[in-house]
């Protein structure tokens, strides 16, 4: 399975088919028991720290701190990433939370929390976006925002996105390709390739299980 620069890959499949596990392997959150993942030609198991600088994962939990305000959450992310705080206002405005930026995340609706998580992705500005059911609990404007963010990241860095999703409607016009997973394998994709090229594909997954 190879994903090229600029490509958006959708992954479908039943619950428990291994979609989220695959995303977490790509994000270096868990180690694959076998198989390999190459990112821009590099094995992510050999270079996990480097890979963490290239990818950003939006999981189905927002991963925010409830007792911190929206702005403080982003400030923390910026500090951890070594970025300045200048971009934070812009990001907050972008995800439509500038007015609520001084309020604790605890008071936010789940849609607002996911907007903030999206804002953290913008702050990270990754080359590879990994989104786990990004449209959940979003209204129509939120869905549009997700798609905008994906397009923006891809345009800016000639990046790649892998999106786990249930209904393709939300991502209409965004996906270049959709594959289905079953029992931890791609069912309608051809045999896994093991291409390792430096200038080649941005993401290569071989025999993930």
């Amino acid at each position: 399975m190879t994903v090229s620069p600029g490509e958006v890959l959708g992954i479908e499949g039943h619950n428990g088919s291994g979609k989220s596990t695959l995303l977490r392997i790509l994000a270096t959150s868990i180690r694959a028991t076998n198989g390999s993942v190459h990112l821009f030609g590099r094995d992510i198991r050999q270079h996990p720290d480097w890979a963490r600088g290239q990818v950003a994962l939006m999981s189905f939990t927002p991963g925010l701190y409830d007792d911190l305000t929206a702005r403080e959450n982003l400030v923390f992310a910026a500090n951890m990433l070594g970025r300045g705080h200048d971009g934070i206002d812009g990001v907050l405005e972008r995800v439509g939370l500038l007015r609520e930026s001084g309020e604790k995340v605890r008071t936010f609706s789940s849609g607002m929390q996911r907007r903030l998580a999206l804002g953290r992705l913008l702050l990270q500005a990754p080359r590879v976006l990994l989104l786990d059911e990004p449209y959940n609990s979003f209204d129509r404007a939120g869905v549009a925002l997700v798609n905008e963010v994906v397009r923006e990241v891809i345009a800016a860095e000639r990046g790649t996105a892998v999106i786990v999703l249930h209904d393709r409607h939300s991502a209409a016009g965004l996906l270049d390709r959709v594959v289905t997973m079953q029992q931890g394998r791609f069912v309608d994709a051809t045999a896994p390739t093991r291409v390792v090229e430096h200038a080649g594909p941005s993401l290569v997954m071989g025999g993930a299980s």
Partner: protein
Amino acid sequence: MTASTMPLAAASDRRSGLPWGWIAVGGVLALVAAQVYGVLTSPPDRDMGHLQKIMYLHVPAAWNAFIAFFVVAVASLRYLWKGRAADDLLAASAAEIGSLLTGLTLALGMLWGKPTWGIWWTWEPRTTSTAVLFFMFLAYLILRKFVDDPERRAQWSAVVGILGALNVPIVYMSVRWWRTLHQVQGSPMTLDSTYYIPLRINAVALMIVLVAFIAHRYRSAMITQAADDLEDRAALMEGGSRA
């Protein structure tokens, strides 16, 4: 994990060329013989009388407990280094036997202490260190019970085992200072040289039993894990359709 344990289980079968069952039986017989030898040959001690014979199990149990602990530490280090599930199971097996032996050491020490000094417990450095060791073995085993994911359990218990090993000499030193600064009776269990030979024989016999026990627990842990893996794999095959 799945892929790594299967060949290991097979490897342990191949390695089991040693007849561990017979070694265990032989070890127990040797221990019984050594006990009989010790009881029959050594004269009653000047101060302790026949009570002294409790030493023939107490002291070897303590020594072997420390050997077991050493195995835990080394196997844990090797697990973190190589990441092989077998090392984790070896550490766990050694910890099980080690906790048994430290418990035995403490119980025998108490049985000996009551008639000798009139007290069940003394804060003597070696006794106290053994008690701390006992608690660290137990904490290690309890941690293993409370963690379900095999990789997580292996990694965490390895870390706990290594930090525990670092602590043992520090505990011993601090308790010794604590006692010597406050002037209580020194080491009580110094033995006459006539008692050395039966003591050594008993220690060796118990060590054979220890090694056989560890080997047995290790093998059964390997088999259990292989069975669990097969079960997981079967569940995974089925799971796709359940969704």
